[in-house]
Every structure is written in structure tokens, then in C-alpha cells.
């Protein structure tokens, strides 16, 4: 039984990492109706920028701020050259644009920082320790703590500030937001910047775990089932979806792996997501069905 809990808790904690990526999606989807395929590339770009600065001897906190500034510049550029020209276009057009965008961002990352793999040390030992007879990874707990703080910060930002109010207004009713005089371009820049910030945090945690490399942008594919399960419009959904995917894939690997063969982890979330699509297309916390792409 202890072993079961160990797998479960380990899976849940790993799922937090998926949630982090999914939250970036949800923010952008809610505020601009864009399914942002480039979120993975943004995670990669942020992590790569950070680690490259760090390797050049820039102090940790300054790397963080500088990368954040870079992500804001990126958001400004995206608004200017992608979102503004394509305003009022169909969701599929915007999705295609973000698909292209992900390649542009990856290309930019390679141009700036090269293509080699970087190690990233956050100073957290990945030694397991024991609580109540269960082995837990220190790093996973740390990641969960960071994710929790991030969610609290976001919730304060959304609920207690004027900018947060305008973001929520736009997410609720874009036309009404325009009618009260909210500037959409400004809101888009802010929301893409916040998504860049979330991407940076996700990138650091993922980078510390698997190394900062180009395959990092592929975690976008892991976030997809998380979003289908949790719903595209809810941060709570992104968190719960991440936890479900994390826990179920680990349990499946351990308990079904011996029966069907290994590697279940890679496809199990998709099967699960497919099941959700059939039973609950809007996801657990979703508000409405979205254009499936």
C-alpha cells in the first residue's frame, strides 16, 4: 500500500509541472481566445535565455529579471506583428499563426544562444526523503511549492488589481470590454507577458529536471491532454488536470506497464483525454466547448 501511495504522490508532484505549462495556455486562451501552440517554445526560450545569462556569470536574480524583461519584449512583438494584424480573424487562423510563431521563437532562441544542451542547477538537491513511510523527491516538493506560490500570486494579481480586473473583463466579454474603454492591445501584451512569466518559471523547473534543450518545447504536447481534461478556460482546471495526468500516467506505468509493456507514460494521457472528450468535452472546469484543432 505504501508503494501505491509513493507512486501516487510522486505522480501528483510531477503533474504540478504539467499544470505550470497548462496555466500559460489558459491565461492566453481566456483573454484572447487564442490557442497558443507557441507556449512550449516560450518555455524553452525563457529557460534558454536564463541559463545562457547565468553561464555568463550574471547573478541569479538578475538573470530572472532580465529574462522577464525579454519575455515582455517578446509579448510586445507578438502583439504588434501577430495579434494586431490578425485581430478578428478566425480561431483556426490564429492557431496556425501561433504554430508558425513557435518555430520563429525556437529559431530565435537558437540564433541567440546556440543549440547545445545546458545543465541548470537551482540549488535544490534531488535527494528523496521520507514522510510517513513514503519516499518523496525533494525537488518535486520544491516545484509544488513554487507552483503554489505562483497560483497565489496570479490570483492576487487577477482579483485585487485594476489590470487584473480588466483582464477578467476581457475574458468574460470582449465587446463589452471594448465598450467600457478597455484597450485590447494593452491587455494582450500584459497577458502574453504574464504567460511568459509563467513560462519562465515552468522552464526553470523543467530545465533543472531534464536539462535546458530544444526538446523542452515539446512539453506543449504534454499540456494538451491536461487542458482537455481540465478545460481550456480555468486555472483550477489546469491544476487539477495536471495532477490527474501526472498521477494516472505514473500509476499506469507501474501497474499496467508489466502487462502491456513499458512506455505507457507517453501515450496514456492522450487515451485519458480522449475519454474525457467523449464524456465531458468542455473538460472538468471548462465553460464552453472550444474549437478542437
Amino acid at each position, binding site marked *: 500500500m505504501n508503494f501505491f501511495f509513493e507512486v501516487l504522490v510522486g505522480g501528483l508532484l510531477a503533474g504540478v509541472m504539467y499544470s505550470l505549462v497548462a496555466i500559460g495556455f489558459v491565461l492566453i486562451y481566456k483573454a484572447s481566445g487564442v490557442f497558443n501552440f507557441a507556449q512550449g517554445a516560450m518555455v524553452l526560450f525563457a529557460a534558454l535565455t536564463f541559463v545562457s545569462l547565468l553561464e555568463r556569470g550574471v547573478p541569479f536574480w538578475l538573470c530572472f529579471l532580465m529574462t522577464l524583461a525579454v519575455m515582455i519584449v517578446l509579448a510586445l512583438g507578438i502583439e504588434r506583428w501577430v495579434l494586431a494584424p490578425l485581430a478578428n480573424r478566425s480561431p483556426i487562423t490564429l492557431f496556425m499563426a501561433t504554430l508558425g510563431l513557435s518555430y520563429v521563437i525556437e529559431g530565435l532562441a537558437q540564433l541567440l544562444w546556440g543549440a547545445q544542451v545546458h545543465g541548470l542547477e537551482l540549488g535544490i538537491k534531488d535527494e528523496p526523503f521520507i514522510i510517513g513511510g513514503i519516499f518523496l523527491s525533494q525537488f518535486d516538493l520544491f516545484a509544488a511549492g513554487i507552483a503554489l506560490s505562483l497560483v497565489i500570486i496570479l490570483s492576487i494579481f487577477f482579483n485585487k488589481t485594476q489590470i487584473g*480586473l480588466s483582464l477578467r473583463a476581457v475574458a468574460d*466579454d470582449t465587446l463589452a470590454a471594448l465598450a*467600457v474603454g478597455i484597450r485590447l492591445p494593452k491587455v494582450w501584451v500584459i497577458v502574453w507577458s504574464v504567460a511568459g512569466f509563467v513560462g519562465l518559471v515552468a522552464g526553470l523547473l523543467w530545465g533543472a529536471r531534464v536539462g535546458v534543450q530544444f526538446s523542452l518545447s515539446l512539453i506543449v504536447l504534454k499540456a494538451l491532454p491536461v487542458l482537455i481534461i481540465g478545460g481550456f478556460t480555468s486555472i483550477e482546471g489546469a491544476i487539477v488536470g495536471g495532477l490527474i495526468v501526472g498521477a494516472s500516467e505514473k500509476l499506469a506505468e507501474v501497474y499496467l506497464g508489466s502487462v502491456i509493456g513499458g512506455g505507457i507514460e507517453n501515450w496514456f494521457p492522450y487515451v485519458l483525454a480522449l475519454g474525457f472528450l467523449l464524456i465531458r468535452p468542455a473538460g472538468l472546469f471548462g465553460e464552453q466547448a472550444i474549437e478542437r484543432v
Partner: protein
Amino acid sequence: MSTPILELTHIEVLYNQVILAVKDISLTVYPQQIVALLGANGAGKSTTLKAISNLVRAERGEVTKGQISYKSQLITHTDPAKLVRQGLVQVLEGRHCFGHLTVEENLKTGALPLKLTKAQLDAQLARIYTYFPRLKTRRFTQAGYTSGGEQQMVAIGRALMAQPQMILLDEPSMGLAPQIVEEIFEIIQQLRLQEGTSFLLAEQNAAIALHYADYAYVLETGKVNVHGKAEQLSQNPELQASYLGAAFSVAA
């Protein structure tokens, strides 16, 4: 008469570059007036209002001919956010409250472009609650869960938060019980008298609109068909039969 606060001259509006929703509309609103835009479904009332507030652009529409001036300045292609700061605000047809935001948060969004201090914001909220005491009791309820009448009050209250001089009001009576409609029109009347706000209001309910309005324009397929003083139009027998229909028989 004084100079108009709002003037439209030969406006034409196209949606998607092909759909001609408004063909030729000219109209004038003087300060402190209530002017009604009447007409059947699809006559172009909403499009005219959205052309003024420049919200047509968000629906792939465009003013292709004519000029719109507000306080003697051309505003034909001005950003809606800028118009709000200049005191020109639209209340959309169908209310369009932010359903997940509380009533009070909805009101606060109306003042976002003004960047008020906390004290100024509280003063504005207090002002809205004196016009709509009912909203005060519902202030912490999500707007999506309030009644249709309350949502219309939220929509108007939200527009008032920007301290406008001119309100474009689209079908305030839509789907509401007669006594609520009257309550809302009484408040419009009060705003005009106490704050000097001007109104351009689109209505299907011609009876009530003509009762409160000073002047009215009757639209038909994107053009002004008849216009005149409200009391004259409400006497016009031809109009009663052809445009204003059954709504007129219930007129007070």
C-alpha cells in the same frame, strides 16, 4: 439652438466589406436631449450606435461614407477607449454584463479608463447606488446571477461610472417587464435633468421611447424614413400603422 453634441452626416456602414447595413443616415443630438432611434428588426439602429462608438470595427464593420462629429470634433475613426475618456459611452444591446464579475466589479470596470483614486472610485460607486439602490444590495453577487432588470441597471450604471456627457443606449427595454422598463426610463430622465447627460437611444418599444424622447428618427433598411419631434411622431397615424405597429396601441 445650441451647437449639437453629436452629429451624423450621410453615414454608410459596411460589414465584411459587402453587407450594407446602414445606407444613408444623418441625425443630430443637442445637449441634454433624449433622441430616439426607432425601426423594425434589422433597420440598422444598433449598427448606427456602434458606428458612433466605433465598436463596428470589432465586428468587421466599417464606416465607409459620411462623417460623425462629437462636441464639434470629427470622431469617425477614433478608438473606443478614447471616446469613453471624452465622455461618449455605449450601453450595448442585450446588456453584456461581465457575468463572472460581481455587480460592483462590473461598475468598477466602467471607470477603468479614468484611472481614479480609491476615494474617487468610492464616490462614483456611491453616486451609482443612489440612482440604482437595488444594485447596492446586490453588489457582491455575480452579475450573471442577477435578474434581467438588474443587469440592465448594471449596464447603465457601468456606463455612468465613466461620467459621460453622451450615452448611446441600445434597447434598454429588451425582455423586461413594463414596470422595470418604466423605472429605467425614469432614471434616464432624471440623469438628463440632474446631470445634463444626452441620450441617443435605440428602441423597438416606440411607445415608451416616444413618451420620454424629445426627438425621434425612424429608420427603415438603413435609411432615415421619417423624423420629427416625439409628440408629433406619436400623433402620426401613418406611422402608427406602418412602422410602430402594435406597440403603439399600448401607448399611454
